[in-house]
């Protein structure tokens, strides 16, 4: 058996000391529930993101990028797989229960996966802006994460997300060098995806954020969001694209870009499972789960070691 703590104060003192929690520890129920919810949301988002990638495999232009999308799809589904293992070990839900909750619309996934990707430009914008938001978010969790199994699997995931971000940057370079029609398509995608990607960081962190208290987050949402704006505004400007934010300001002295007021209503709608593409996405994922049921049943029915 793992370690036990007599009270939440004891446990938090352990965390303050830099302590790492492992799966066999008798962690406080609130901590277990919070870690589980966090990892389940991450796992669901990886899986739903992977399904969007999959949609674009046949439509991706050029063999090189088509192969890269194949790899990215496998990466994302794989991340979901890894994270579901870590989440299941917490003993709150089994992997199958998590998947069934997701496909029944009973559990959440991140806001950006509630929107439709209509054009190749959208895929480029997602690969740049969404992966560009996911990487710093995951790094901020990894940096000081108190839950050992999650921290270790995040290291692997972050390395692969880095490949995706570089792929996104390359796609932007290619599309920026394209025809006027291609550039116009990508400008539309920036206009559509800028705000959903920015809202991925969430509203400003509350001072009493338990996830920060328990070292699941080591950076405030607003700090990560500001870093994202500072990175992508100059990058997109350098390619001659515009940012759909009339309130965007630039401090010439510090060369700092700051976004205008943020409308949080769309984020609330996606969190209430009522985003622009939520219903279709859930229905499609759920249908795929149903049509592959026979595979799971066959595997479950196979006697142990029958194939080997």
């Amino acid at each position, binding site marked *: 058996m793992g370690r036990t703590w007599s009270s939440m104060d004891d446990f938090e003192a352990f965390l303050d000391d830099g302590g790492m929690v492992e799966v066999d520890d008798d962690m406080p129920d609130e901590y277990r529930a919070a870690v589980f919810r966090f990892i389940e949301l991450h796992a669901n988002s990886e899986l739903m993101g992977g399904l969007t990638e999959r949609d674009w495999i046949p439509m991706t232009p050029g063999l090189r990028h088509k192969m890269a999308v194949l790899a990215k799809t496998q990466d994302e589904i794989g991340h979901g*797989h890894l994270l579901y293992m870590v989440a299941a070990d917490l003993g709150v839900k089994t992997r199958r229960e998590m998947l069934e909750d997701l496909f029944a619309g009973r559990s959440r996934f991140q806001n950006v996966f509630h929107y439709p990707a209509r054009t190749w430009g959208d895929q480029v914008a997602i690969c740049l802006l969404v992966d560009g938001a996911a990487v710093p978010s995951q790094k901020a969790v990894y940096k000081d994460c108190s839950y050992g199994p999650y921290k270790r699997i995040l290291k*692997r995931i972050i390395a*692969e997300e880095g490949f995706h971000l570089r792929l996104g940057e390359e796609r932007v370079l290619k599309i920026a060098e394209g025809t006027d029609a291609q550039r116009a398509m990508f400008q539309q995608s920036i206009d559509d995806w800028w705000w959903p990607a920015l809202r991925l960081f969430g509203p400003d962190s509350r001072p009493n954020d338990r996830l920060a208290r328990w070292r699941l987050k080591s950076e405030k949402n607003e700090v990560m969001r500001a870093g994202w704006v500072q990175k992508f505004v100059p990058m997109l400007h350098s390619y001659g694209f515009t940012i759909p934010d009339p309130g965007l300001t630039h401090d010439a002295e510090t060369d700092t870009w700051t976004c205008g007021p943020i409308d949080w209503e769309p984020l609330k709608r996606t969190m209430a499972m009522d985003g622009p593409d939520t219903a279709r996405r859930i229905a499609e994922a759920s249908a795929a789960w149903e049509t592959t049921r026979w595979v799971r049943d066959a595997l479950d029915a196979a006697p142990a070691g029958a194939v*080997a």
Partner: protein
Amino acid sequence: MHTYEIFLKKDGQEEYRHAGSIDAPDDELALLLARENYLRRAEGDLLWMVDRTHLLVGDRDFVAPNSDKPHRDNDGLLVAAHRKSQREAQ
């Protein structure tokens, strides 16, 4: 369904390291899933897997006594103090 623990090793480098776990119905599929999920970009050259139920675990209580055996170490402080006092006497 079985849960397998996965260990990876790079040629000539250190020991096998735990990478994570995977669910699979049998050994053959377990190996395939492990390769496709954990060895996507040459993260290792060799792979070990073991059904979690076959792991023999020494828990913290079993291991703990050996972390409190100071007589097995020598911090060298006594000799260092002697040398220092000799240097200072010169």
